[in-house]
């Protein structure tokens, strides 16, 4: 029993490391552009498969393949934002939601068309797991956690310190005041879309490192990632990190009580419970 409890803790932290960047992307888009982007789950899939394609297909070393993949996904997100989403910028919340659903289907089917419906594995050299006081964790899992923490931390610092980050925060906080302060919104929106696409794709790469790639990996992560983003407070990147841990812990420890097929429902229950108690999320909105 106590070994299970240890192992669930490790699994929760590891899966949280994949959800957190995606949730940060969702949070960022919502915070600035004010719509839930349901396509960001598919950017996870895209990130995972592009990494696969570049490493297996072109023989690139995995870190380089992953880097190019997430940057490419960022540019895909930027391109879609500056064309389709930009065209409906002033049309309210519904058109961008519908667009994001359409984009979700397109991306999912593009991945299927290239790689089929089966599962793929990134080509990772075999390693020996570490065992610390009964906590068993593989080097790849450790790497996932480190990369995730770094990505969230770096994004946070970008928002906090850079000129771009200040413009992002100003637009999220008070769009009209940002306009009359001389901020041109479109380049900022483009940057936000790039960051969100990149972060989500990174979440997909991390997920791929932990398990296998399937065309539904992004779809399966969508609900938990949204639960995490909302729980963390939409627009709040650090909140996304903390919330990812909470949702993942709840999901893993629920296995002590319910069958694993109910695991994804747990994310939803946690979300509902916390929203009832604190509608703005655990760490409040924005930052």
């Amino acid at each position, binding site marked *: 029993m106590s070994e299970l409890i240890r192992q669930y803790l490790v699994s929760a932290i590891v899966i949280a490391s994949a959800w957190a960047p995606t949730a940060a992307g969702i949070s960022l888009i919502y915070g600035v552009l004010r719509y839930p982007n349901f396509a960001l789950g598919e950017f996870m899939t895209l990130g995972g498969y592009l990494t696969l394609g570049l490493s297996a297909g072109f023989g690139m070393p995995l870190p380089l393949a992953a880097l190019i993949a997430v940057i490419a996904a960022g540019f895909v997100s930027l391109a879609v934002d500056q064309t389709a989403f930009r065209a409906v910028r002033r049309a309210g919340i519904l058109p961008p939601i519908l667009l994001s659903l359409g984009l979700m289907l397109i991306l999912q089917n593009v991945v299927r068309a290239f790689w089929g419906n089966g599962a793929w594995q990134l080509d990772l050299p075999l390693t020996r797991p570490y065992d610390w006081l009964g906590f068993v964790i593989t080097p790849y899992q450790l790497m996932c956690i480190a990369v995730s923490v770094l990505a969230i931390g770096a994004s946070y610092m970008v928002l906090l310190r850079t*000129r771009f980050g*200040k413009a992002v*925060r100003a637009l999220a906080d*008070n769009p009209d005041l*940002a*306009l009359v302060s*001389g*901020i*041109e919104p479109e380049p900022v929106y483009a940057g936000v879309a790039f960051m969100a696409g990149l972060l989500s794709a990174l979440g997909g790469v991390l997920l791929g490192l932990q398990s296998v790639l399937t065309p539904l990996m992004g779809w399966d992560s969508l609900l938990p990632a949204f639960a995490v983003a909302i729980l963390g407070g939409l627009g709040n990147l650090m909140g996304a990190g903390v919330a990812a841990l909470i949702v993942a812990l709840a999901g893993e420890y629920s296995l002590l009580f319910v069958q694993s097929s109910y695991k994804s429902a747990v994310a939803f229950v946690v979300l509902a419970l916390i929203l009832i108690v604190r509608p703005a999320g655990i760490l409040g909105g924005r*930052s």
Partner: protein
Amino acid sequence: MSMISAAPQTAGRLLGEALVAGYREMEILHGVSIAVAGGEFVTVLGPNGSGKSTLLKTLCGLLTVKRGAIWLLGNDVTRASARDRLLAGMCYVPQVRGVFASMSVMENLEMGAFAKRASEVSDAFERVFTYFPRLAERRRQIAGSMSGGEQQMVAIGRALIASPSVLLLDEPSAGLSPAAVDDLFGRIRNIANDGVSIVLVEQNAAKALEVSDRAYVLADGVNRLEGPALHVLHDPEVRRLYLGGD
């Protein structure tokens, strides 16, 4: 209501000529005109919903001009973006949500200078701190956690950082105590005395008119009255409408 303007009059620092504007299909301003000279302090009065805020939003570039023209320092800015109007010398403080609530006082001021080079605004911070010394003490405080009066100082400070030649202020006295209103209007008068033209929208008609040079009265999106502040202050209709009668 049509007004045919001759050769553009460039003597004024800010001119709004027969402005028609509003929200989407809804027209609110049906041809409002306003003229402000250099360093002049102009107050705009009018009942709730008469279009005062709409006029300022149109002047600063948040709303598009359907007809009419806006001249700033002799340049036609009718179609210019809010950013270009700021760079041309006009800054705006909105009626509500005039600060970036999640940002510190310093960050709010920095945002006001966002469109300018750091070298262009290096003195501006000191100048804002001389108008509002309290802001210098509270640099690190998050604006959303400040009192209403302090937030209003941050809001005006943010607009002043870009060193405007015209400052548009929408009801900065809202929610302030009478003493705080006197204090604030005194500071705004100082800003005007330093050569910045002021367009102040106000509900506190009597107090605003006492410190201003000239005033406009709007009603239902048209000019109703204009003149030297003291004339407007003593106009029977204005007294009846805004100053509680007698």
